[in-house]
């Protein structure tokens, strides 16, 4: 294996792949990056066995071949190299030499056979999605996944593909985020439900430019995303996703419309006094006033008020302020529409007056209030 590559291209490729390389691993080869030189250029790949990222960068290949190199060391070297072409050549199965200007390195690696093979995903049956649409779904929903490990299903984001739209849903059992966007489907019409680890979605969001068309294909229990140069593979989470539609309230008859920034500011002020553990605050809706209050034993209490547009009977309801604040952060409009049924029933938050095509709904379960 022998090739010459610009320092920028090398760094670009390494940056794309580096995030998929685990920092701690019991399998030494996983902390290495797979470097393959082909006629087209070089391909860099990394994996933590759950997610694999592979990207192709242009290079002047003299001799094809492959080897794995410690990713961290290679990245550190690439960052410090002078701005000159980088010549990389294998010397034997387990070592490369790297020359750049007057710098010279010999780095020990591992044979490429030890690197795990990528999941077999056949892109022949793929469908296509605009990267930007996918990213929009990801950034508005995946924050809501569960981090607690007892229900692995909730650690993933549900991605529902339908002929006319696609939808992502994430929840930790306390709050839920759901967004759908219409799609002009191309390729095979797909109706599919996939549960994707958020870490993989983060890679998708990070690696592909918004205007790129992605090819997506499903293997046995893996999913592959591919653009002309870069591919991401991820393990899918198996099992039935809870029936979220059933818990989304349809008959919430108390509706408030608030200024998002004012609401968030008040919540943050109340949070200062709220309990560290639960961030519990009380919201009291009464005609045109939303009154906030919080009491924490041993600390103190606070109240605040915000004029709102409210219809429905007066309501007192408790929430984890952090949940509300987090959702407000992703609401794409200046005003937010909140709906309620009762103090122990789910509340919804939606963007008010959203002009973009698509639907966005977040849901929060209340905290018990004691009078």
């Amino acid at each position: 294996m022998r090739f010459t590559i610009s320092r920028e291209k090398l760094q670009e490729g390494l940056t794309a792949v580096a995030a998929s390389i685990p920092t701690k691993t019991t399998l030494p080869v996983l902390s290495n990056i797979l470097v393959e030189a082909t006629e087209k250029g070089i391909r860099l790949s990394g994996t933590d066995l759950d997610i694999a990222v592979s990207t192709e960068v242009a290079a002047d290949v003299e001799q094809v071949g492959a080897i794995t190199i410690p990713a961290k060391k290679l990245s550190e070297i690439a960052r410090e190299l002078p701005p000159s072409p980088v010549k990389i050549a294998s010397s034997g199965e387990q070592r490369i030499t790297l020359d750049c200007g007057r710098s010279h390195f010999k780095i020990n690696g591992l044979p490429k056979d030890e690197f795990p093979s990528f999941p077999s995903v056949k892109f022949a049956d793929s469908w296509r999605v605009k990267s930007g649409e996918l990213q929009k779904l990801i950034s508005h929903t995946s924050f809501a996944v569960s981090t607690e490990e007892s229900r692995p299903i909730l650690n993933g984001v549900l991605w529902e593909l339908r002929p006319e739209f696609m939808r992502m849903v994430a929840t930790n059992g306390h709050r839920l985020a759901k967004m759908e966007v219409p799609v002009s489907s191309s390729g095979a019409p797909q109706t599919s439900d996939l549960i994707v680890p958020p870490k993989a979605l983060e890679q998708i969001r990070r690696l592909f430019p918004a205007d790129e068309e992605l090819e997506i294909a499903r293997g046995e229990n893996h999913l592959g995303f591919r653009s002309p140069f870069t591919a991401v593979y991820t393990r899918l989470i198996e099992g039935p996703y809870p029936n979220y539609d059933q818990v989304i309230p349809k008959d919430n008859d108390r509706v408030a419309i608030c200024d998002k920034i004012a609401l968030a500011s008040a919540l943050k002020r109340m949070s200062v006094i709220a309990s560290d553990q639960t961030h519990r605050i009380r919201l009291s809706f009464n005609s045109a006033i939303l009154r906030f209050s919080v009491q924490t034993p041993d600390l103190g209490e606070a109240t605040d008020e915000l004029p709102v547009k409210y219809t429905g009977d007066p309501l007192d309801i408790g929430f984890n302020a952090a949940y509300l604040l987090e959702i407000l952060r992703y609401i794409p409009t200046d005003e937010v529409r909140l709906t309620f049924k009762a103090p122990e029933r789910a509340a919804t938050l939606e963007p008010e007056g959203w002009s973009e095509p698509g639907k966005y709904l977040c849901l929060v379960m209340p905290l018990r209030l004691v009078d």
Partner: protein
Amino acid sequence: MSSSLVSPLGRIAVLPSAVADQIAAGEVVERPASVVKELVENALDAGATSVEVDVEDGGKRLIRVSDDGTGMQRDDAILALARHATSKIRVASDLVGVASFGFRGEALPAISSVSMLRIDTAPADGEGTRIRSAAGELLGAEPAARRRGTTVEVSQLFYNAPARQRFLRGARSEWRAIADTLTTIALVRRDVRIVARQDGKAMFTLPPARDLRDRIAALWGGPYAERFLAVDDVSGPTHTCGLVERPADVGLASRRVHIAVNGRAIRDTGLVRAAEAAYRSTIPAGVRPALFLEIVMPANGIDVNVHPAKTEVRFHDRWVLERAVEAAVRRALGTFDSGAMFGRTAWPAAAAPVYGSPPVDVEAMRPAFDADGPLFVDEEPMETGAAPDSREPAAVDEPVPPLLQLRRTWMMFEAGDGVVLIDQHSAHERILYEQFMGALARGDAPSQRLLFPLTLHLTPEEEEAFESNSDLLQKLGFEAEAFGGHSILVHAVPAPHPRFDAERCLRETLASLTGDRFAAVHARHERLAATVACKAAVKAGDALSAGEMRALFVALRDTTLPAHDVHGRSTIVQLGWDELERRFGRR
């Protein structure tokens, strides 16, 4: 053995009274200490305000007890040597609720039967009588000048009972028993001046004391007296007061246990156990606290006529009494005073009061709300793993030392005089325990409603545990209902921390509550809070982020008993610099 009453077969004879007295003496008078006890109690029953005890050769040669009590007339004094002669009761019904120390009329005859006895007594100054006896035989009674009061002098104890004499220990050992006896009495009768001398040397001089702590200070020194918490609690007709050792000090000095009921020092393992039960969750298993407890209860609830030395008594309702004692001690342990000294030395000296980390990560949220910044924050790193969580606060200026996690089990930091290790599970358990106890008391635990109710299938025992604890579980934030067929449906759960696995916690809690029978409300609360805290706390093996460790540290510092987990194990262990220096051969 001359006998007046002999059966036809000549085998069975009624013993002459002198022999009977000697036998009785075996019960009442075992050793010099029991003589001292009987004589001092007689003095106190006679209304003495000052008692002086002189002992020679551990009491084997001489015991002299002088008081300033009422004294006796000549005839009374002679009669006092006769068995069952007593001034303290008249008829059997007086036995119920007898308040004096003695009443059986056994002591003096028993003592006189095994020693040479001299009594100097006077009901008023100058009208004294001197009585002498040996081996129970009255040798003489003559007038003698004496101030009001009585002096009883017992010499040559057991001179006529060589078998008993052989069993006496050395003078030091006998003196120690006498000192114990006097201590016990001194703790109960703090109003009386007590002086003890051995071989002419003053061993202790106790002035009348204002309260128990003063008397303890007089006996063992001021610093020892300072290690105690005051107990004072009324439960029904039972009043429990006294002093108990601070949990942090338990096991560091000699353990002394004194229990008095209605002014009578007694031994009772049941009451000691009840008091020790109150320490549950505050001290390690195996160490036992020093206790000085005084219980006042209706006289008809107690029978003191069980044992000749009256050190054991019988309670009519032992269970209620033990609960009252446990509750009283527990109340004392729950006071601020109890927590004030705990493990404080283990904290960095500079630690100022801290009011917790900011509840939400306000800084991190700001970009989304910048007036002219984009609301659609695609450039921002997506926070996938992050549940709303204060445990990763932005850098806050708190005097929290840098913390290092070891083996995913301990947090380590440097304190003033050494390295401190905190067990992460124990620490979290203690924090949650106190939270849950607060929640049980107030019933306002935040309860997060669930989008998807949990269904738990229970064994019949677990189901029973659920039913008998559902009221308390609800106070903790678990809202659940029976769903039929050994299943429960959980609608809401507590949310003590973001890693909390409610389902597992509830399941394990119910599993370990099976078969529990705690009737007392507080015991149930504690048991449940401890169980749920244990199940809900982070475990050894959980990797903690720096923010999580910091939050744990701050929360632990704010607990009342940071140094102990709810099982009595240590939460904090300190390795001093001197120890390290020794290990490295630097000193």
